[in-house]
């Protein structure tokens, strides 16, 4: 996909948070903004990422804009839904099937711990379904395997929340201290409330066009999990092998190869931070650091704004909250704006190459590489 010439013609966001409007209205605002930036090209197809939207969610958004006619397909891949939609659009453009494709993600999540049709009713009845508990088991293993501490987990939150102060699209825009993170409610030890992203509402949209110039989509790769890891996002009840390569690493390796770049070429990264430990795992799975290097990187501020590779300059999901179907495209919008130099106080100076990463239930991981 590296040489097909897919460019980002326009992006748009509806802020992530809680709003007194329906999901269609939220989607319309993001799509309208992206189409306006792109100069209102004729759209040949639309892919809409959503997990909780229900039947024909994308169709309803385009119907409200008077844009029905082309194919409109809803795409569900858990937290990676928006990334999956982007990959499908990119493949269709690469195949020469379409000239302009609209990709958007919309969501209005129920409040509190996410209830997922992924699980069987007996699993809910037995108490085996809360996502923060699985995140906590993974965080504990990361701490055991690498020596990462609870304070390191808190430092991730401090970094992302500091970034989020400068992002008007984020839900939480107040700095927090290590002490405040550790004093927030203990949800599932070792994870405190501030270490977990909040499910919420929002939308993001991207118009892709065949062509050169501006911000280019260098690769968009989706990979699912290999069985074996009991704590993978696939959420199995059992597993016998923690040595399998996680889907994020599979997707990243292919995305780097297709884009013809290495991790060292990156200037800015938006990665999955559904909980603080997830971000630290993402670093190693994306090849941004070696396992166990995270505390040193945190202490040195290397992945904070002003450091050598700012990660989650948008504030991440820890600041923005997570509208499932929209979160992956929200990251893409951030990277595009970073590459265009539009990010004001959270701008990564001179950013030319950026990566975004999400991983969702069913363990689909999506890695997107963009450059200008």
């Amino acid at each position, binding site marked *: 996909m590296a040489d097909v010439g897919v460019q980002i013609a326009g992006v748009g966001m509806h802020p992530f948070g809680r709003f007194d409007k329906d999901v269609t209205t939220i989607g319309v605002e993001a799509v309208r903004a992206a189409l306006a930036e792109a100069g209102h090209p004729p759209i040949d197809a639309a892919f809409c990422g959503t997990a909780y939207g229900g039947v024909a969610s994308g169709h309803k958004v385009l119907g409200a804009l008077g844009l029905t006619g082309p194919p409109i397909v809803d795409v569900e891949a858990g937290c990676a839904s928006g990334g999956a939609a982007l990959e499908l659009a990119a493949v269709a453009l690469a195949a020469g099937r379409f000239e302009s494709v609209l990709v958007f993600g919309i969501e209005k999540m129920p409040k509190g711990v996410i209830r997922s049709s992924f699980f069987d009713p007996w699993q*809910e*009845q*037995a108490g*085996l379904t809360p996502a*923060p*508990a699985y995140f906590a088991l993974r965080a504990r293993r990361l701490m055991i395997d690498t020596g990462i501490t609870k304070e390191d987990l808190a430092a991730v939150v401090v970094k992302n929340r500091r970034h989020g102060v400068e992002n008007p699209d984020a839900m939480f825009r107040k700095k927090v201290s290590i002490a405040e993170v550790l004093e927030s409610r*203990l949800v599932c030890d070792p994870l405190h409330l501030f270490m977990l992203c909040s499910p919420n509402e929002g939308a993001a949209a991207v118009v892709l066009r065949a062509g050169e110039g501006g911000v280019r989509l260098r690769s968009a790769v989706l990979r699912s999990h290999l069985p*074996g890891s009991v704590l993978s996002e696939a959420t*199995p009840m059992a*597993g016998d092998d923690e040595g399998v390569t996680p889907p994020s690493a599979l997707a990243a390796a292919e995305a780097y190869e297709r884009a013809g770049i290495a991790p060292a070429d990156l200037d800015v990264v938006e990665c999955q931070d559904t909980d603080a430990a997830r971000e630290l795992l993402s670093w190693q799975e994306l090849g941004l650091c070696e396992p166990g290097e995270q505390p040193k990187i945190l202490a040195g501020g290397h992945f904070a704004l002003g450091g050598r590779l700012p990660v989650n300059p948008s504030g991440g999901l820890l600041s923005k909250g997570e509208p499932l179907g929209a979160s992956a495209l929200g990251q893409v919008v951030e990277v595009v704006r970073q590459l265009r130099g539009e990010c004001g106080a959270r701008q990564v100076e001179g950013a030319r190459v950026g990566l975004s990463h999400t991983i969702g239930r069913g363990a689909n991981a999506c890695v997107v590489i963009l450059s200008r």
Partner: protein
Amino acid sequence: MARVPVHPGLFELDGGTLRLVGGYSPSSGRFHFPSAPVCPYTGADDVEEVTLPEQGRLWSWTAVNAAPPGYSGPAPYGFGVVELENGLRVVGRLTEPDPGALSKGQPMRVVPEEIGTDEDGRAVVTWAFAPSAGEG
């Protein structure tokens, strides 16, 4: 009180003991849980149902402090992964709800745990792991 499993096929109940029922594929040589029609690693359809080892070691743990949606049993409750003696790591409830009272690698054994009653007044039972001091 009469007892009923939370779901059929997950385990065998006999008085105070519970044995998890997993699957084993002779062609792949690998165990899984719950037992599935095909081996999740290879797709082979030679899966045999087997009872899994009762003993294992604690591999990761936490506690769920507030009842999640769809759950009406007691809270807080322990939650963790135990590596059984055959190497299979199994997710389950822990009888110990205080994470500070647990440590990596400590011996655990599988036990029945009651999580409520059904409409006929029978105790609903699932599997859980309990510290087994002095063993292993």
